[in-house]
Structure formats: C-alpha cells, structure tokens
C-alpha cells in the first residue's frame, strides 16, 4: 500500500479525432492501460504502483469518462483501430507494454492479432472477447449499474469497492456511471461481449502474453482464460485467489506485483 500522494496528471487532450480524458503518471518506458466496460473512476492505487516503474498512460476510451463519443465508433474492432491511432498520435514509443482489463483486454487482443509489432508485452485481465466454454458472461444490461459493481467484486469489504462503488453515489457519479453504460452498450450489445472470429485469430498473436484472472470472476468466467491460453502461444496464466473481476481494485498490490513480475521478467 502506498501512502505517497498520487503523482499523476489528469488532462483533456484532442487526440486521434476525439477529446480524450487522459490520466498519466510515472516515468520510464510507456505502459498503456485499457480500462474495462465500466470505465475507470480515478487514478487508482494499482496505476500508482505501476507508475513507480513505468510511464503509465490511462485514457478514458471513447464514450467513457469525459471522453467524447463519435458516432462512427460502433464495435470493439472500431475501438481497437482507435487505440492504434491514439498510440501513434500520442507519440508513445512502440512496441510498448499494455495492460487491458475485461473489454480493454479484448481490445488489446484484437490489436495483437493484427499487428505483432505494436506491443512488447501484453497483460489481459479478466478479458472479454471469447464465448466462455463453461458458464456465460454476466449480463450487464439485464441488471442494474449497482449490481454490476457488486458482481465484479468478490470481497465487498475491500477498500476500493467501498471507496468507489459500495456506497450511495453523488448525482454526478450516477450520471458518469450511466454515461459509461451508454458507451459499453454500443460496443458490446451483440454478439454479447465476444467476437465470433477472435478465437480463430488468436494463434496469429506473437506478443508475449500474461493472462490474469480472479478465481471468482463473476463477470467473465475463468473458462475464458483457458480459451485464451489455448489460443495464444506460450501465454502465461496468473490466477488470483479470493478475487473477482477487478483484481486491480480488489487486490492492487498483489495485482501490481504480478504484472511487474511479468513485464520485467
């Protein structure tokens, strides 16, 4: 646990055709963070821990946070194309490391199937994108926004769950959650949170990959982790015990250590 003040900047920048809410901090080689379908509420403790070693860049993806949302973005493939554009316009040196959470993991995997020179190493965390072999991806849109966060955490007493989600939201926070849901629904509606072609493209990935999964992931079943592992050559797996769909928020330290171990190894 860090007690140092969060050394990060938050700004709004015009990049790759949209107005992007961009949080960044740290120094060194760039590390791109692609958030999941619920957006990212803050510069998180996990970002801070990673920023001690890397220059961490966390854009709010189009439609999420306060980033703008042009009509042309209609699918995760469109989003992947946008991320590629974003990386280039940001001037981030490539290949670069990437950590993608849930939908963000799916985006990273899509990019890695089309361009093996973009990422040096890739970490997929509870990644969506594949139809699970067992179980189903939890339905965000048959459930309330509150339920989604509850379902995403195994431990409802964990500090960041209580800090961000397990309490009454301010009107602004509730509006932001709805904005994020409006973005997610456009990218993920059907086929629901998966691609029918990605399984066949996974063998095209040459990027060294770590799959991180919470054993109790209540959103994307752990059977999807096995499918990613089978599809991506030499993919490593780190299963976090007593942990749900958001290891970065539920167990930030263990999560950061796992990621750093892989990136530096």
């Amino acid at each position, binding site marked *: 646990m860090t007690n140092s003040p969060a050394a990060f900047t938050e700004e709004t920048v015009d990049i790759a055709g949209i107005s992007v809410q961009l949080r960044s901090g740290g120094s060194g080689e760039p590390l791109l963070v692609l958030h999941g379908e619920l957006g990212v509420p803050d510069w998180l403790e996990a970002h801070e821990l990673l920023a001690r070693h890397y220059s961490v860049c966390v854009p709010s993806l189009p439609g999420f946070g306060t980033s703008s949302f042009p009509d042309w973005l209609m699918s995760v493939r469109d989003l992947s194309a946008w991320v590629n554009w974003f990386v280039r316009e940001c001037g981030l040196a490539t290949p670069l490391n990437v950590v993608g959470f849930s939908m963000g993991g799916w985006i990273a995997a899509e990019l890695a199937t089309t361009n093996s020179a973009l990422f040096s190493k890739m970490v997929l965390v509870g990644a969506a994108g594949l139809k699970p072999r067992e179980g189903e991806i939890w339905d965000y*849109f*048959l*459930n*309330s*926004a509150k339920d989604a966060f509850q379902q995403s955490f195994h431990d409802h007493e964990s500090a960041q769950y209580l800090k961000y989600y397990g309490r009454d939201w301010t009107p602004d926070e509730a509006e932001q959650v*709805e904005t994020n*849901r*409006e973005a*997610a*629904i*456009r990218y993920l*509606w*059907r086929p629901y949170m998966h691609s029918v072609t990605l399984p066949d493209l996974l063998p095209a990935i040459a990027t060294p990959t770590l799959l991180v999964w919470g054993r109790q992931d209540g959103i994307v079943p752990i059977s999807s982790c096995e499918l990613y592992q089978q599809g991506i050559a030499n993919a490593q797996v780190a299963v976090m015990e007593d942990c749900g769909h958001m290891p970065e928020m539920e167990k930030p330290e263990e999560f950061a250590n796992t990621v750093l171990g892989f990136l530096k190894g």
Partner: protein
Amino acid sequence: MFIGHFTEEPWQVPDWPDEWGTGIHKVSNAEYDPYRAANLYNRYLDEKIYAEEVGFDGLMVNEHHSAPFCMNGVANVQASILARITTKVKILLLGNILPIHDDPLWLAEQLAMIDVISRGRLIPGIVRGSGGESISHNIPPHYNRERFEEAHDFLIKTWTTPGPFRWEGKHFHYRYVNPWAVPYHKPHPPIWVPGTSSRETVEWCARHRYPYVMLSTQLELTREMFKIYYETAEEEGYEAGPQHMGYMFFVHVEETKARAMEVGRTLTQGVRSPFDPGVQRPIPWIMSPPGLNSRKAVALRRQMTAPDATGKTRAGALASFEDQVATRGMIVGTPEQCVEDIRYIMDYLRPGIIIFRTGDGAMDHESQMRTLKLMGEEVLPAMRDIAKELGLPGPYEVDPATNEPVTALAS
C-alpha cells in the same frame, strides 16, 4: 370522429401469483398453456368481430414481447386474420415496433399484403417500443431511434417507389428492393403513432403530420402533449386539428352505476400492463436500457410526470380504481353517465380519434360483450353527435396529411 376498440389481450388465469405482477421479463413461458391460449385468442377475436358489428370504426391491435399482459406477440398475425374476418372496420396497428425488425422489407411486404387483403383498411401504426422489446429480440436499444427513423423512411419508400431500388443505410442494407405486394391504399396506408409522454416522439409525429394517439394518460398531460403537437405543426407551417389528435382511455358501461363499478373494477385486476395507472412499474433498467432514450428525453419525461404539490403523480402511477374513475382516467357507469364524462374529455382535449380500452384485465367475455352492446346502442351514436356539435373531425373526414376533406373513394 373515429372511434376505436382496444384490449391489451392479457393472459387470464385464476391463480396468477401477486409477486409475478405484469409478468414482463419475469415469468417463464413454461406457464403458457396453449389450450387456455387458444380459447383466449379466439375469445378476443370474437369480441373484435362484435365490436365491428356494434359500430366501432377501428379495431386496434398492439404487441409486446415476453409479456403475459399482452398475448399478442405478433400484431400482424391478428391483423391478417382481421383483414379476412371483418368487412368494413379499420385495422389499426399501434403498432409495429419498428426498431426490433432486422428486416424491414419483410415487414413492408406483410403490411402491404394485409392492406390489400383488407382492401385498404389497414392503419400500420409504428412505435419505438420499450427496452423490454429490445431485450427480447436482442436489438441494440442505443440505436432504437435511428432504427425507427430509418425503417420508417424505408417503409415509405418501399410503398411509394417502383422497384427495384437499392437501400444502403446505416442500419439496413438491401441491393434489390422490389416486393411483389404493394399497398392498396395510395400513396401509402395512413400511419399513426401512439405516445405516452415523449416530447421527441410527438414532435417527430407532428413534423410528419401523423395522427398522434395518447394511451391511457392523464388528461392534463395529454393536453400538454397535444399542445406540443400544435406548436410543432405551426413551426412546420400547417395548422393541426382534431384529425391529428387521438386519445385512448378505459371504458366500461353497464345498465346501473353499481354494476358498472363492480364489474369495471375487473379492468384493474388480473395480469395488467406495466404502463397502466396503479401497476407496479417493471424493472427500470430493462424498460429503459442505456441509450434507449436521450438524456434530454429522460429528464423531460421525469419533469412531465413528476408528482404535483400534493404528491400525486400526474401519470396516476398509484391511483386506485376509485381515483381513476373520479379523475376520468376510467369512464365507468351507465351509458348516460359515460357519455357525460366522454363529452367532457372531447371538449377538453378535442381529439378526432377516441379509442375505448375495454374488456381488459380480468374482465370476462360476457361482461365485455354486454358493455360492447351498450356502447353500440347508446354511447357511440351520442359521441358522433357530440363530435359534430364540437367540430371534431377524424382522420377519415379530414386528411391529416393535407387538411383536405377525405373523399369517399380515398377512405
């Protein structure tokens, strides 16, 4: 004056558990008993045939999905049957849920066939539908309005432009639009649109000069929505009139007030529509998924249906049967009493279209037939006289598209 008949055609069963409520997105279709359903579907059709016989101008049919409160999952099936078993009544669809159709060409051809078989009696109304319909058919709710508008434009073009032609839109794509069947009614069948309290919809409707039918809404709110129609029409450069305004409300008529209150109460019992007063609203994130309505529309609707200073919601969300009767949300009484209340509504709202919602909820067949008979004998003729007196032409007297008198041939 155009007077229509409507029932939601609810599932009726004596032992429906209270906790199942409207049943929408809650109850498995393992509860659907085809033998009971066969009786109910045929009962509702019998009532429609009788409604034509007693003098209604139109039979309104709607559809909902995964919804026991409305057995009609496919309005066009019932419309097809009515096209053949009725002879003069208009078949009013309110309506097809345009955004949930992935193939609007198929819809265009179905509707054209119904219009032709009925010899031009179809009114193919269109709706956006609630979130539940999008979820049942896995249609993106966030493109609901775009799909509604594009499908509408496509239907009109398909009905009015000789094929073949190509359609390359955002949501629908065809390389060969050339359905063999085209509508009987020229230039195309009249489109009506129902509403509850969406400002965006009433404005859209007014811009297209389509009759707008408010469904079981509180009187004051209804008048406000009509006002938006009139204002939008003015902006568009034409004068709206009764031929553009429709209103649906519950009616039950009996020989005595006491009997009417006793039997009319069954309208508020049984498996009911979640949109009705007094019914527990269904799950909000299913009825209104992210993106189904714009934030502006959601805020406006909240404002329009907010409780007044006394805490009563204008939509009457928790109104009792007695409250609804007292506020003319439900017209229940003897023929004379009903006519008096209906005259008040006609004078207050000045609609050219009135639709009786009747035989609904837990009401039995005999009661519905009894009330239809009284409506035909006493209520409808009186309403026609009142409409003349107040100057309330319906859309088959004054054409909403032109404001010109409708000729016998065109109607």
